[in-house]
């Protein structure tokens, strides 16, 4: 049985992580560890590694932790900079450059990705000035004429020179020193950064579930409408019944009161009738969100931060049984973080083989993160025979 697309991953440099190696990955990979041990960073590193040239993924990954905050968001460029590793002790000077290095093995073509950035500064014509000058050509001409005369119309902006190098299996056979793909990006603050969207390929399909992403409706309808969802809609209903036995169907409908032609997901409920999904509890929304995301990532990598979030302990086992079944069915490799011993025990109960479930405990040390790996066999003995605490 295939264990998934990735066989191992080493995060040499990423955020605060140094030389963290996850060997012999399984189908379900559970990350545990104390707060700030780097669990979420591992998921973020996987997102970047699987989409190394897609700047939109870089940006969404950089902002992922702020998803639930509507205010005080870190500027995009700053958030991007914090994805990179910096020399310690960190100061303003050292923040001006940083690096990322991640390598992996498995069926994904990219075997190593390295990225570096350098802070740059540029002079731009302010928005006010842009409004005065209609076209790009005229803008350039006009700049030349007026620099010095009206400096208040010019502004300094921070930017990043981002260089990404990829090493792939095929070309590395001939020359392992030189990168096979090198891409440069120049990103400026106050610009609509997703304009610099980069390239989608090479990539490995990923889907991310954060602790709060089920509370946002964005994208849910699109996911539900995808034909592939229909193949397992009946099973999704079974999953949702873990939370509420009165759920009988899921529908995509246009509300009669809607003036924006916006479709919404409705749940057919024995007692409530047809009710929008937003009126249901966190657990139902979370499981539906996980199910929809899973459907979108067939053959790829599914990243769930805080697997147990919003799911009552009594519902964990059946929910995870469903998740494991469909991860296998759709050849999806799961990476999930958890703080919950009940979640570990529930996953142990619903998995059977050595490669089914692997637990990695991250232990940050002075210069690197130590990783303790337990395969399913040992994890089962540790928990069930010895009652060992394995989260720290």
């Amino acid at each position, binding site marked *: 049985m295939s264990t998934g697309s990735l066989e191992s991953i080493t995060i040499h440099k990423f955020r605060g992580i140094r030389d963290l190696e996850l060997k012999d990955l399984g189908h379900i990979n559970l990350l545990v560890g104390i707060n700030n041990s780097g669990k979420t960073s591992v998921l973020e590193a996987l997102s970047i590694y699987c989409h190394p040239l897609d700047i939109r993924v870089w940006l969404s990954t950089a902002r992922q932790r702020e998803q639930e905050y509507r205010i005080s968001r870190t500027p995009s460029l700053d958030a991007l900079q914090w994805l990179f590793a910096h020399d310690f002790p960190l100061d303003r000077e050292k923040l001006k450059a940083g690096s990322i290095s991640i390598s992996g093995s498995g069926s994904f073509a990219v075997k190593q990705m390295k990225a570096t950035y350098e802070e740059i500064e540029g002079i731009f014509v302010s928005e006010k000035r842009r409004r005065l000058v209609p076209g790009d050509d005229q803008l350039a001409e006009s700049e030349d004429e007026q620099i010095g005369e009206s400096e208040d119309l010019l502004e300094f902006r921070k930017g990043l020179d981002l260089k990404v190098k990829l090493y792939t299996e095929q070309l590395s056979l001939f020359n392992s020193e030189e990168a096979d793909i090198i891409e440069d990006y120049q990103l400026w603050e106050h610009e609509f950064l997703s304009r610099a969207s980069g390239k989608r390929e090479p990539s490995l399909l990923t889907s991310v579930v954060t602790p709060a992403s089920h509370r946002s409706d964005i994208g849910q309808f699109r996911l539900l409408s995808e034909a592939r969802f229909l193949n397992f809609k009946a099973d999704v209903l079974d999953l949702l019944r873990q939370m509420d036995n009165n759920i009988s169907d899921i529908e995509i409908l246009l509300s009669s009161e809607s003036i924006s032609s916006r479709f919404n997901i409705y749940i057919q409920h024995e007692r409530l009738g047809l009710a929008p999904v937003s009126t249901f509890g966190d657990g139902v929304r979370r499981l539906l969100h996980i199910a929809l995301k899973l459907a979108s990532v067939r053959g790829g990598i599914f990243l769930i931060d805080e697997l147990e979030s919003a799911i009552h302990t009594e519902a964990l*086992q059946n929910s995870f049984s469903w998740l494991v079944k469909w991860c296998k069915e759709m050849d999806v490799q799961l990476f999930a973080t958890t703080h919950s*011993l*009940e979640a570990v*025990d529930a996953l142990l*109960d619903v998995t059977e083989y050595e490669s089914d479930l692997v637990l990695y*405990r991250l*232990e940050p040390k002075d210069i690197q993160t*130590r990783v*303790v790996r*337990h395969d399913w066999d*040992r994890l089962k*003995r*540790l*928990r*069930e*025979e*010895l*009652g*060992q*605490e*394995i989260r*720290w």
Partner: protein
Amino acid sequence: MNRKCILIGVEGNHDQAFLSKVLREFLGFSKCEDQKNLDALWRKFIPVYPPKTGRLHLRLDMPSILYTDALSVAIYAGEGSRLVANLKDKLADIDYLSSLSAFAIVADADKQKPAEVAKKYYDELREYFPDFPYEISETGAVTETTPKLGIYILPNNSDQGVLNTLLCACGEVAYPVYMERAKSYISQFSEEEVKQIGWKPFDKEKATVATIVSILKPGKTNTASISDNAWVSTRAEQQILSLKNLTIFLRKLLSI
């Protein structure tokens, strides 16, 4: 708390109680009864019961933890033949090479000669501790590596026997009259009877000790008697060479 941590594996609860008593009686250790005195490393050794094993009455192993100002010793009792397998699983879950200052096995020689038992443990543990000793003298063996590694085979590193062989010797010092009466009682059972009951080698010694325990601590277990009665005493240590050698072994292991 920043004590050096020493892990000692033993095969059963009686060995655990005996070693615990030796550490308290001769080497100045106190038993850790309060979680606030527990060193961080041993917190992982407190079982956290899995919720649905299907074995509702199963009790999981809890090591005896003993400490001085500078040292913290955990005596882990595996389930006899499962000792090494359980220890390996537990060691795999901790950074044992840097967190332990010593690791040792105290086993008995009920089925094999002590040298063979030592070799068996060496073979089983060398994956985790390549320097684990297998050549034993009358005081067992302790390496000078980091962590220190040791093995002591009961009753005396040279003869076959079990903990109860040593306890009988202790009983001769502490309770000579009771020992006489117990042996006389046990000897009333014919060979045919004990064969029918299904005694294994060294069960005679075990029955003798248990007989005295039933008098010293009626209704209590051997572990309670080993802990509370006078089996292990300074007088016994002075008179019984193998008990003295066990203390020497522990002193070497603990660097005291």
